[in-house]
């Protein structure tokens, strides 16, 4: 049974003792735990204990129709579900040899970037809360709620939209949606000063976050770190630019980087990325009305839909890093194999164990949150 112990356990005659933080610890991100061996308040060794959220999704997907799986995939990452749908759809489209219509691709980008904004707002609050600042958490969640309202408006679902299908998207945008989106972006930009004063230039936070959990560029590459965590180490890699999918090659955006690789750099990269997403969404708002056409290609009856035999590896950039779906079809009406490569599977296990070593116990929660790991991506 887990957790294995609830009290600190002294180890032999040494000064070391073992404690278990999580999965219900207030300073932990969710459904995973960390077993720490401490000497005083310095961590000697940390071991990730995952599996609290294992639902066997990869196995479930092998027993369901291609279209039924769309109800499963977004549930793999709660804060940022849109990239999951898009990635799965892209993989199936690649096997079938079809492309979504141009308009659907633009709508997908809109959905992906909105989802990224929502996920980053969530992370700001969580990260700040690990240092004892709770106001950014309330702000972040409240502002994220405005994004979720828009999701409800155009997909019907606040968190799990289940909006994409292989071949396009399910619904056309509602009347007047782009104006609403434009208002929301104006509002988010107007909040920039408030967030900067409260969090990003707040000395109380800066002093706590600087120099914590330092990851060098070499270590980041070695441990397979991707996404904002990698960009905080100074390597400007982004799947959207370097392995472009959808219509990202027609959009202009910068890839924010920082050099230090600590918790402070990581949250700054996310802050800058949020404004890049707003920049992308403004381009979408300007371009989308001029793109006419269908929003999905004709697909066969979903209940008797056989995808030809083949395999595809579809990568997208989620708010956490490189997300990929490896889908294998044997020509049947169900996938033969679906493998989810969640970015957090790298961040939450090996990278976290590496960074926890030598850290002080009060920084452990902050290191976990600064990596922005999403435990269900590990468990699946």
């Amino acid at each position, binding site marked *: *049974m*887990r957790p294995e112990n609830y009290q600190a356990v002294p180890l032999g005659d040494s000064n070391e003792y073992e404690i278990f933080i999580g999965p219900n610890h207030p300073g932990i991100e969710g459904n995973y735990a960390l077993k720490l061996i401490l000497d005083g308040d310095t961590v000697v060794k940390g071991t990730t204990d*995952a*599996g609290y959220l*294992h639902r*066997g999704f*990869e*196995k*479930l997907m092998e*027993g*369901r*129709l291609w279209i*039924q799986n769309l109800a499963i995939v977004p549930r793999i990452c709660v804060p940022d579900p849109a990239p999951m749908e898009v990635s799965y759809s892209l993989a199936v489209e690649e096997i079938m040899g079809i492309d979504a219509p141009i308009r659907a691709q633009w709508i997908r980008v809109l959905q992906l970037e909105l989802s990224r904004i929502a996920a980053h707002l969530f992370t700001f609050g969580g990260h700040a809360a690990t240092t004892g600042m709770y106001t950014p958490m309330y702000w972040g969640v409240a502002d994220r709620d405005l994004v979720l309202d828009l999701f409800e408006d155009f997909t019907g679902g606040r968190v799990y939209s289940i909006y994409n299908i292989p071949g396009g998207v399910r619904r056309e945008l509602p009347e007047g949606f782009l104006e609403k989106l434009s208002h929301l972006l104006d509002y988010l930009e107007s909040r920039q000063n408030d967030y900067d004063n409260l969090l990003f230039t707040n000395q109380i936070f800066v002093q706590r976050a600087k120099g914590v959990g330092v990851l060098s560029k070499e270590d980041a*590459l*070695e*441990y*397979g770190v*991707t996404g904002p965590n990698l960009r905080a180490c100074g*390597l400007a*890699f982004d799947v959207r630019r*370097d*392995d472009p999918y959808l219509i990202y090659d027609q959009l202009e955006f910068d890839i924010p980087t920082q050099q230090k690789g600590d918790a402070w750099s990581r949250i700054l990269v996310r802050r800058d990325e949020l404004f890049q997403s707003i920049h992308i969404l403004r381009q979408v708002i300007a371009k989308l009305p001029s793109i006419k056409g269908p929003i999905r290609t004709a697909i066969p009856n979903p*209940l008797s839909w056989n995808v030809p035999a083949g395999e595809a*590896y579809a*990568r997208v950039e989620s708010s956490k890093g*490189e997300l*990929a779906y*490896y889908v*294998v079809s044997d020509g049947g009406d169900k996938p*033969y*194999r679906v*493998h989810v*490569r969640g970015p957090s*599977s*790298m961040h939450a*296990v*090996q990278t976290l164990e590496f960074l926890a070593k030598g850290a002080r116990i009060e920084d452990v929660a902050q290191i976990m949150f600064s990596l922005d790991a999403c435990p269900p991506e*590990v*468990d699946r």
Partner: protein
Amino acid sequence: MSLESLNEILNKINTIKITHKHKRRIRVDVKADSLTTLLELIKGQASFLHLSAITCVDWIEDNQFELVYHVWSYEENCLISAHTRIDRDDAKFVTVYDLYKPADFFERDIYEMYGVFFIGSPRMEKFILTEWFGMPPMRKDFDSEAYVQETFNWTEYNPDWLQELSDQGGGIAIKPEDIRLSGTLHNKATHREREKAKKEHVVGKGWKS
């Protein structure tokens, strides 16, 4: 690095089959004993530094496991998927942990879910399924539906308050024999069976009134 020089490096392996799927995806099929040599070559000579994932596919009809190594190059912006097959009965393979550290996670995952033992991998132990001692569950011959039917009993849930609701024409009284696992079982039911079930038992009848 040009495509030609990359092809030259790949062709150093005998019996390699190279397929260019599109601009940034290359599929290679190699024999199991030359896979680590291939990864060493592309990492050392062609800067494929990032192990994106290792996937295991259970081809039960061929009695083989397929291992797929997805390796990305930050300099070439290209992904090589190296496919190899190993015997299903003697499911052992050599680790690539000394080349790529992320292999630790993926190999542990595959060991747990498929039972493929990676020789030399640092942590061949339980990770997610710490309380599971049966067959590795992702193997195709593990039938999760049969396992559920054998292990758990369907119980009739019909408390008084729900019964009262049903008597008034509402509620969601579902009999155990109506419960079907979605997916496989449901798909097997013929159209006629489904229609019959609908007529016999209307779920949520009079819900709004």
